């Protein structure tokens, strides 16, 4: 009987928040041994669907969930779902930094002897699980000291720990997002291998290439309904088809079109001798209206550049000349950088970018509060400001008083951009600006960045997305494993990937 | 040292001391059969019918303090005066708020219980300014202030002193005049420290063969008293009696003695005579004696005082009814909360007639 029924059936799933229907009558059926993609615009209800499966949300009446043919009681008690073989890799991975890899992998299922944790078996279990997914991580390492990729592997290992070969369903909610290059390849190979043994996989992703290469079928949500269930046996799913299913229309790729800097132009932004924990003596210039990109291999340390440049982290050496301001990056804090017109759109929006418990209006107007008056800020002024920013950036729902926590991930990202563009920066530094956004929103964000440059800002985009850099940058620098910046010959994404790959293999060997 | 204990065992003084103490113990062991005369009030008490008296104890959570109010209420119900109790909760501004409220809600007189004048002097002064007589019961008059019809003090310190002396006498008798006593008292206010000073002096003066060590604590840090007691007992291993000034200190003292491993060599005495204390005496526990004065009688006495003030006089009664409880006399008592809340432990209730007669109500 078990082999005959689908692994997971979610039938007629609806969910209403207040009077807002987020999911209506969604059907999702995943067969044994299947890799299923789940795609959809920001706010289309993907995370909500998963949260119903894990018991965070109670679905509306009339919904049914079955695992291997056996119905689950609703709302789902996660322990029951867990026992039925469902495992989730948490979006932010959910690891405790001060504990060891073995503990993080084995939590929820420690091997015991006489009621006591058998440490030897625990470490062996962790080692075996890690080995099974091909991860080279010591079970005794402290998680806080691992790289992002290793952390993702530990999280995946936890989900697979109790996994009986040939059974179960593993849900990955954008959890491959932090993996790049060979690490990502390895994870994909792993998932394929698992599926071959008969386990099912449900993969939520905004990455078109991932959706095209990995799953056999992609279910696309639009406005809380299943808009397409694209199978691929004959032809590979094309990006255009996914996008059309998501947005109701094809998206044309955004292209800024590179513009050459006038030769006699004195660059407005000049960074010199920038040295941090990884980067050494980095120097670059950005002109008025120019978009510069920086990328590199995952461990090359280019990701600290945005932090160092904006005063968020103290540099060991380096200065930035922005217009007539000269900023000593070893001493300046964020306030000095802001005073010079340097603004950072940080990578981790939930931690560094937005206060989740406050309203959209509060968050979006924050940079401009001081500019208005020291003694009186009217609420209507703030609401007006926020309403404009929301309109300009297409944040949905368009409710200034809604809490940021209630927005979907992509809409939070738009709100974050709206917040910092309102500060009218001289130098706009963006760190992974398109993470977790759908193709439509990505196009909008790239267009906004380009528009900011056209309005006269100098822009620095620090990103691992070659496509983004190719779309919006005038020039791109690649950070080598030694921490040096090298300018690429072209901003074409294939060329960029070649450069990155070169530094990456060089480092690995 | 050795010389001192030599001196302690000197013969003749010791005997006379013990005899005097024994006489005191014997005098206060039986229940009262007759009560002091109360001088009649000058004014006309029947005029006061329908008046309202506010009673403000420092904290109503302490059973004894509430009892004063209940007794006064009982007394005044016989002559048609209303009593309103307002809890000071041990918080100065709650006390001040009570006094304030009494003033604004038209109280005809106010009685406070165990509130130090200094703690709420401003509020009391304002009441007096408004023409409301205030009887500050259970607290001493500050220097230079004497009782007037508007502001009077009915200090129960003499009663407490006598209670302490009774408990001390029980120890003197029990030890045959050679007790090495640890005296434990609170230092929350000048009033209570004063009681402690006098009790220690009494022990030293009347029992030359005894030795006294004193420790003080603040009620708010009662949790540190056990270790303080342990320390004292460790420092002086010859201590064989513990006299606690008030009964809430007894159980911390017992637990301090236990942890210092000294409990077996110690006998305890205390003053206050609450239910727990008498139960312990009855059960042959750690306490050998517990002395107290009738709270009900004291409540009547405070009532008497404020009545006199309301009729233009000053308080004139400072009599009280005391008793020393030991294993010999507790057996016959009704050791229940009801017993504690009544005058029964101290004698019959014929004293009520004495007061009522003096008030012209009978």
């Amino acid at each position, binding site marked *: 009987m078990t082999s005959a029924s689908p692994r997971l059936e979610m039938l007629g799933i609806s969910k209403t928040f*207040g*009077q807002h229907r987020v999911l209506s009558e969604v059907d999702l059926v995943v067969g044994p041994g299947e890799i299923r993609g789940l795609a959809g615009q920001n706010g289309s209800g993907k995370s909500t669907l998963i949260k119903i499966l894990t018991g965070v949300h109670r679905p509306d009446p009339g919904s049914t969930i079955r695992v291997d043919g056996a119905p689950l009681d609703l709302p789902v008690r996660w322990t029951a779902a867990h026992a039925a073989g469902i495992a989730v890799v948490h979006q932010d991975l959910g690891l405790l930094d001060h504990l060891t890899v073995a503990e993080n992998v084995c939590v929820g299922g420690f091997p015991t002897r006489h009621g006591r944790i058998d440490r030897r078996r625990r470490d062996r279990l962790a080692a075996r699980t890690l080995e099974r997914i091909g991860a080279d991580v010591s079970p005794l390492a402290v998680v806080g000291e691992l790289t992002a990729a290793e952390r993702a592997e530990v999280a995946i290992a936890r989900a697979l720990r109790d996994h009986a070969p040939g059974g179960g369903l593993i849900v990955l909610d954008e959890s491959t997002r932090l993996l790049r290059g060979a690490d990502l390849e390895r994870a994909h190979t792993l998932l394929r291998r698992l599926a071959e043994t008969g386990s099912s996989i449900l993969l939520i992703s905004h990455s078109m290439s991932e959706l095209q290469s990995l799953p056999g079928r992609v279910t696309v949500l639009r406005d809380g309904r299943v808009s397409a269930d694209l199978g691929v046996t004959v032809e590979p799913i094309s990006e255009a088809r996914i996008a059309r299913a998501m947005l109701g229309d094809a998206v044309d790729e955004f292209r800024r079109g590179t513009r050459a800097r006038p030769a006699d132009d004195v660059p407005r932004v000049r960074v010199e001798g920038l040295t941090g924990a990884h980067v050494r003596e980095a120097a670059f210039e950005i002109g008025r209206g120019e978009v510069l990109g920086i990328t590199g291999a995952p461990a090359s340390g280019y990701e600290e550049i945005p932090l160092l440049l904006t005063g968020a982290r103290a540099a060991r050496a380096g200065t930035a000349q922005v217009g007539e301001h000269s900023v000593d990056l070893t001493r300046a804090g964020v306030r000095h950088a802001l005073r010079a017109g340097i603004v950072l759109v940080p990578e981790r929006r939930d931690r560094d970018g937005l*206060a989740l418990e406050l309203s959209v209006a509060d968050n979006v107007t924050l940079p401009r509060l001081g500019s208005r008056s020291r003694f009186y800020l009217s609420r209507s002024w703030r609401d007006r400001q926020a309403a404009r920013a929301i309109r300009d950036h297409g944040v949905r729902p368009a409710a200034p008083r809604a809490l940021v926590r209630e927005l979907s991930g992509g809409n939070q990202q738009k709100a974050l951009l709206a917040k910092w563009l309102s500060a009218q920066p001289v130098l706009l530094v963006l760190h992974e600006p398109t993470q977790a956004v759908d193709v439509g929103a990505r196009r909008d964000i790239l267009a906004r960045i380009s528009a900011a440059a056209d309005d006269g800002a100098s822009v620095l985009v620090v990103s691992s997305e070659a496509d983004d850099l190719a779309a919006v940058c005038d020039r791109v620098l690649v950070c080598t494993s030694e921490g040096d910046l090298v300018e690429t010959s072209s901003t074409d994404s294939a060329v960029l990937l070649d450069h990155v790959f070169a530094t990456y293999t060089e480092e690995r060997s | 040292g050795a010389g001192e204990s030599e001196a302690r065992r000197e013969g003749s003084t010791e005997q006379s001391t013990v005899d005097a103490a024994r006489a005191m113990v014997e005098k206060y062991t039986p229940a009262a059969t007759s009560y002091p005369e109360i001088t009649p009030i000058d004014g006309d008490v029947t005029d006061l019918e329908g008046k309202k008296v506010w009673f403000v104890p420092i904290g109503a959570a302490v059973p004894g303090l509430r009892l004063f109010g209940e007794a006064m209420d009982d007394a005044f119900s016989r002559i048609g005066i209303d009593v309103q109790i307002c809890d000071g909760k041990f918080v100065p501004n709650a006390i001040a708020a009570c006094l304030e409220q009494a003033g604004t809600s038209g109280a005809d007189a106010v009685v406070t219980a165990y509130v130090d004048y200094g703690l709420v002097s401003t509020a009391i002064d304002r009441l007096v300014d408004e023409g409301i007589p205030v009887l500050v019961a259970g607290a001493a008059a500050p220097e230079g202030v004497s009782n007037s019809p508007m502001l009077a003090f009915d200090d129960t310190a003499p009663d407490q002193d006598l209670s302490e002396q009774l408990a001390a006498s029980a120890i003197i008798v029990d030890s045959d005049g050679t007790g090495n006593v640890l005296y434990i008292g609170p230092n929350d206010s000048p009033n209570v420290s004063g009681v402690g000073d006098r009790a220690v002096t009494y022990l030293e003066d009347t029992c030359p063969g005894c030795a006294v060590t004193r420790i003080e604590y603040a009620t708010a840090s009662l949790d540190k008293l056990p270790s303080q007691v342990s320390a004292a007992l460790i420092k002086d291993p010859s201590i064989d009696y513990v006299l606690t000034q008030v009964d809430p200190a007894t159980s911390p003292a017992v637990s301090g003695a236990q942890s210092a491993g000294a409990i077996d060599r110690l006998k305890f005495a205390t003053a206050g005579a609450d239910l727990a204390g008498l139960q312990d005496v009855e059960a042959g526990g750690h306490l050998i004696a517990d002395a107290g004065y009738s709270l009900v009688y004291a409540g009547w006495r405070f009532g008497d005082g404020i009545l006199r003030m309301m009729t233009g006089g000053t308080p004139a009664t400072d009599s009280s009814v005391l008793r020393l409880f030991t294993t010999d006399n507790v057996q016959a008592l009704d050791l229940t909360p009801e017993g504690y809340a009544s005058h029964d432990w101290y004698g019959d209730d014929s004293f009520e007639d004495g007061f009522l007669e003096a008030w012209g109500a009978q």
Partner: protein
Amino acid sequence: MTVQHDQAETVGPETVDATAPARARRRGAFLSRYALIGVWALLIVVYSILMPTTFMTTSTVQAILGSQSALLLLALAALSTFVAGEFDLSFASVMGMSATLVPVLTALHGVPIVLSCLIAMATALACGLLNVLFVVVLEVPSLIVTLGTASLYLGLAQLVASSTIVSISHEAFSDLALHRVLGMPLSFYYGLGACLVFAYVLAYTPLGRHVIFVGANRDVARLAGIDVARIRAGSYLVASALAGLAGIVLVASVGGFDPVGSSVYLLPSLAAVFLGTAVVLPGQFNPVGTFVGIYFLATGIIGLQLLGFSGWVQDVFYGGGLVLAVSVAAVVRRRVAVS
């Protein structure tokens, strides 16, 4: 501060939140906002029926409104740290210190009353600075530091008082607290004024909004260029200034103070602040809510006293009232968001 953390956490799994259309949400907000005020009104009606002659009198109103100033100032002190995401448990001891210093300096050492008050305020600020040193500069968790300094300041206040209660009577000084304006003592207006200023600053000035961001997420605030350390430090200094002021108002109105009694002010102030999270801006610390919370509790207690209850009934009312009010507000808020 923990309350916010807790809420952040509770909005995790089980709860469901509100992207409900604005109207339903506003209705829900209204209900949960003013539920406590409704209960307060009900309480007043019930008491008025039970005690038609005694409860609805000016004197009762005065007793309710006039007696809570020190507590209100203390609650605002607590609030000042809570909104900035900090936690101060030492404010009651700081108040004790200032309330002890004034009479001791003036009555025992003959210092002019104005100077005594200044010294008391300076000492309070010094206490605040010490908290800042440990919490903000050395980054030790605030709950631990202030629990410790609470005991430390209490000890020092006892040292100053040297086990006696000193009282002062100084007409002009006590008038500062007790002089009546429109039937209310001046001290009532101090509390009210502080409350309004606080509410205004938090809602309508950049400083206030910055404080709220620091409380909601320190990193976000820092990356927005807010001087987080200065705001955190400021919150402690404001707290100790308010506590110092509460001490002065207290001695001015009662005449003397015993420092060992100061810890009894701690929990009621916290209770009022927490109760305030059930009103006006539900789920958030807010001064107006604190104001309502304090006077709601005072009304309940005074009514009970007038009815002749004391002791345990009051404690039950206090605790039960707090738990029920906050729970009802939380549940209503959530229910409305979902339905």
